[in-house]
C-alpha cells in the first residue's frame, strides 16, 4: 500500500480544518506551537508503538464518514440530574440550547471567548498539558486539536460546585468533522463534576485539559452516544496536585471506532485517581482505551478499570501504563482490563505495562479475556432465569467493577440502566 508520507499527511490533517483567525497573543502562539508539534510528530501511523492494534486511517482520512443521525426517543443520559447544560451542535456552541454560563463558585465561558482575552489561568493550561503529554508517547491528534479547535468550554471551579456542568454533544449534519477543546481548572479545595454526553460529530476529536490543585476534586462522566458508524478520538490530559481526587468514567456503546486516551500526571502526595470505562460493541466496532498514569509523588493511589463486552467481530483494545518515578514511594497502582467475548469472532487485545523506579510500591495489573462463565449461567438458569436474561445479568455483573468506580450512585444507576438496555436490544 502506497502510504502517504507521514509529514505530508500531517500537513493535510492541518489543512482539513480552519483555525480561528483572531485571538489574544498567547492563544495565537499556543496554536502556532501546536501546529509545529503536529508537523514535527507527523501523523499517527500503523507502525507507531501505540497504534499497532488500532488503525488510525479513518481518523486521518480526508473526510469524516457519512453517519446517519440517530433519532432516539429515549431519555438522554444524565437527564434526571440537575445540571448546568451546555449544548454543542456539530461542534458549535449553541447559546439558545444552553443554560446561562454562570453558577456558584464557577467561572465559565466558551473557548472562543476565552482565547480572545487574557486569562492567565487558562493560558497556563491551554495546549500546555497537551504539549507535555506528547512525551514519551506522541499524540498527534491532540496537537491537531490544540492547533485548530475553536470551540469548547473553559471552566474554573473556585469552591464546591454543586450542579454538574453537562456538555451535550448533538448532531444534525451527517458528516460533521468536529474539534472541541476544553480547559478546566479546579482550585484548591474546590469540587467539580463534568458530564459529557453524545456522539458530537461523524468524526469527533476532543481534548480536555484538567488541572486539579491541592485538595481539589474532579469527577468526569461521559457517555459517547449511540450513533453506529461515528468515529471518535478523545484525550484527557490531567495534572493532579496533593490530596486531590480525580475520577473519570466513560460509557461507550456502538460507534465504529473510538479511541479514548487519558494522560494523568500525579504531582502531589496523598492523591487518589481513577480512570474507568465500560464498553459494549456489536459488529463493526473497535474500542481502544490508551491510558498513561505517571506517579511522581508519595502515597498516591491510581486505579484503571476497563471492561469491554464484545460480539459479532467487535474488537476491544486496552493499552494501559503505570509509570512510578523514583520518588513516588508507597504508590498503590491498580490496573485491570477485561474482555467478555460473546462469540468466537470478537477479540480483545491488551497491552498492560508497569514501569517502576521506586522500591516501596504496590502495583498490580491483570488482564483477562473470556466467554460468559457456563457454570454461572447454568446456576442462574436452574433457578428459572431464561438464557438471554441470565446472559444479560452476567454481562452487567462483568461490567459492574468498572461502574462501581462512579462515585455518584444516581449517575451509576443511570449508566446501569443504559447498559442493560443495550444488552437487551442486542441479545441474539
Amino acid at each position: 500500500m502506497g502510504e502517504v508520507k507521514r509529514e505530508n499527511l500531517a500537513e493535510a490533517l492541518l489543512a482539513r480544518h480552519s483555525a480561528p483567525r483572531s485571538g489574544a497573543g498567547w492563544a495565537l502562539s499556543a496554536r502556532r506551537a501546536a501546529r509545529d508539534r503536529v508537523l514535527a510528530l507527523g501523523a499517527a501511523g500503523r507502525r507507531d508503538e501505540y497504534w499497532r492494534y488500532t488503525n488510525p486511517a479513518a481518523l486521518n482520512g480526508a473526510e469524516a464518514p457519512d453517519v446517519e443521525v440517530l433519532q432516539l426517543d429515549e431519555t438522554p443520559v444524565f437527564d434526571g440530574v440537575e445540571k448546568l447544560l451546555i449544548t454543542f451542535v456539530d461542534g458549535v456552541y449553541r447559546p439558545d440550547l444552553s443554560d446561562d454560563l454562570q453558577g456558584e463558585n464557577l467561572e465559565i465561558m466558551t473557548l472562543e471567548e476565552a482565547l480572545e482575552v487574557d486569562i492567565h489561568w487558562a493560558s497556563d493550561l491551554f495546549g500546555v498539558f497537551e504539549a507535555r503529554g506528547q512525551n514519551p508517547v506522541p499524540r498527534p491528534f491532540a496537537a491537531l486539536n490544540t492547533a485548530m479547535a475553536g470551540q469548547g468550554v473553559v471552566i474554573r471551579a473556585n469552591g464546591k460546585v454543586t450542579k454538574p456542568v453537562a456538555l451535550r454533544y448533538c448532531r444534525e449534519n451527517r458528516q460533521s468533522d468536529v474539534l472541541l477543546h476544553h480547559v478546566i481548572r479546579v482550585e484548591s479545595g474546590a469540587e467539580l463534576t463534568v458530564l459529557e454526553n453524545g456522539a458530537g460529530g461523524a468524526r469527533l476529536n476532543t481534548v480536555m485539559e484538567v488541572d486539579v490543585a491541592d485538595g481539589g476534586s474532579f469527577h468526569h462522566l461521559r457517555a459517547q452516544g449511540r450513533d453506529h458508524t461515528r468515529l471518535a478520538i478523545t484525550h484527557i490530559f490531567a495534572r493532579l496536585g496533593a490530596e486531590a481526587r480525580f475520577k473519570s468514567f466513560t460509557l461507550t456503546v456502538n460507534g465504529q471506532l473510538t479511541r479514548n486516551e487519558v494522560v494523568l500526571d500525579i504531582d502531589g502526595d496523598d492523591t487518589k485517581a481513577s480512570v474507568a470505562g465500560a464498553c459494549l460493541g456489536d459488529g463493526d466496532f473497535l474500542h481502544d482505551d490508551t491510558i498513561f498514569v505517571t506517579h511522581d509523588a508519595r502515597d498516591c493511589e491510581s486505579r484503571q478499570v476497563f471492561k469491554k463486552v464484545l460480539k459479532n467481530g467487535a474488537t476491544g483494545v486496552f493499552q494501559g501504563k503505570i509509570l512510578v518515578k523514583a520518588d513516588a514511594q508507597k504508590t498503590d497502582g491498580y490496573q485491570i482490563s477485561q474482555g467478555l467475548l460473546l462469540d468466537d469472532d470478537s477479540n480483545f487485545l491488551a497491552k498492560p505495562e508497569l514501569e517502576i523506579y521506586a522500591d516501596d510500591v504496590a502495583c498490580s495489573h491483570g488482564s483477562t479475556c473470556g466467554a460468559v462463565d457456563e457454570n454461572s449461567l447454568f446456576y442462574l438458569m436452574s433457578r428459572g432465569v431464561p438464557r438471554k436474561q441470565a446472559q444479560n445479568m452476567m454481562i452487567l455483573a462483568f461490567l459492574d467493577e468498572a461502574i462501581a468506580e462512579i462515585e455518584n450512585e444516581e449517575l451509576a444507576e443511570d449508566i446501569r440502566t443504559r447498559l442493560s438496555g443495550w444488552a437487551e436490544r442486542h441479545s441474539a
Partner: protein
Amino acid sequence: MFEIKNLKASLADEDKQILKGMNLKIGAGEVHAIMGPNGSGKSTMSYVASGKGGYVVDEGEVLLDGANLLDMEPDERAAAGLFLAFQYPVEIPGVGNMTFLRTAVNAQRKMRGEDELNAAQFLKIVREKAKALKIDADMLKRPVNVGFSGGEKKRNEILQMAMLEPKVCILDETDSGLDVDAMKLVAEGVNALRDGKRSFLVITHYQRLLDHIVPDVVHIMADGKIIKSGGPELALEVENNGYEGLMNEVV
C-alpha cells in the same frame, strides 16, 4: 410425580458413561434419600435432570408430572417445578443476591402465566423466609454466594428453594460442611416445605441428616445406578457397615 426412567448419560467430552440405567420413582409428598460412594454418579444424576451442559443423554427419561424434563431448557425445568440445591453453589460476583432471587421468582411466575411480584411484596416474603433460616439482611445484599461461608451457601440454597416453591427438590449434599445447628436449620427449612404434595430427593453421605429429614425410601447408588432400595434402616446399615457389603450383595 417425579420419575427417572432407565437414565443413561455420558460425558460430552469423553466417551465415558456415568449413569448406567438409573431408575427412581418418587410419589407426591414423599421424601427419598440417595446414598452412595464417591463418584457413583449422584451429582451427575442431579445435573442431568436439571439440564447442565457437558452431558449427553444416551437413553431414558426424567418425568415430572408426566412431562419429560430432558426436552426442556434448564429454566423451563425450573418453571416446571424442579429445584436443585447444588453440592457446590456457584459464586457470581456482580450479581446481587436479592436481584437474582427476584429475577428468578418473577421469571418463573411469568413463565407459568402468573403475576410478577413487585419489589415490596417480594421483600416482605424474602425477609420472612430469610429470618427463619437465620440469614441476615446483609447477606442478601451481597453478590450471589460471594464471600459466603460453606454453611451460608447451603442455607442460601434452601432460601432459594423456599422462595421458588418447587414441586420436586433435589438436595445434593446440602448437609456437607454444616455444623450441627446449621444442619438443624436446614432440616427445619426443608420440613417446613413438606406439605404432603412436594417431593424431595435428598443426596447425603450421613445418616445424621435423615434423623431430621426422615425419608420414606432410601436408595443406594453405585456405579451409575440404584442397586438397592429400602426403608430408613438402610441408611443405618450404611452408617454401620459402609457400602462394601451392599455392593457385594448385588454382584
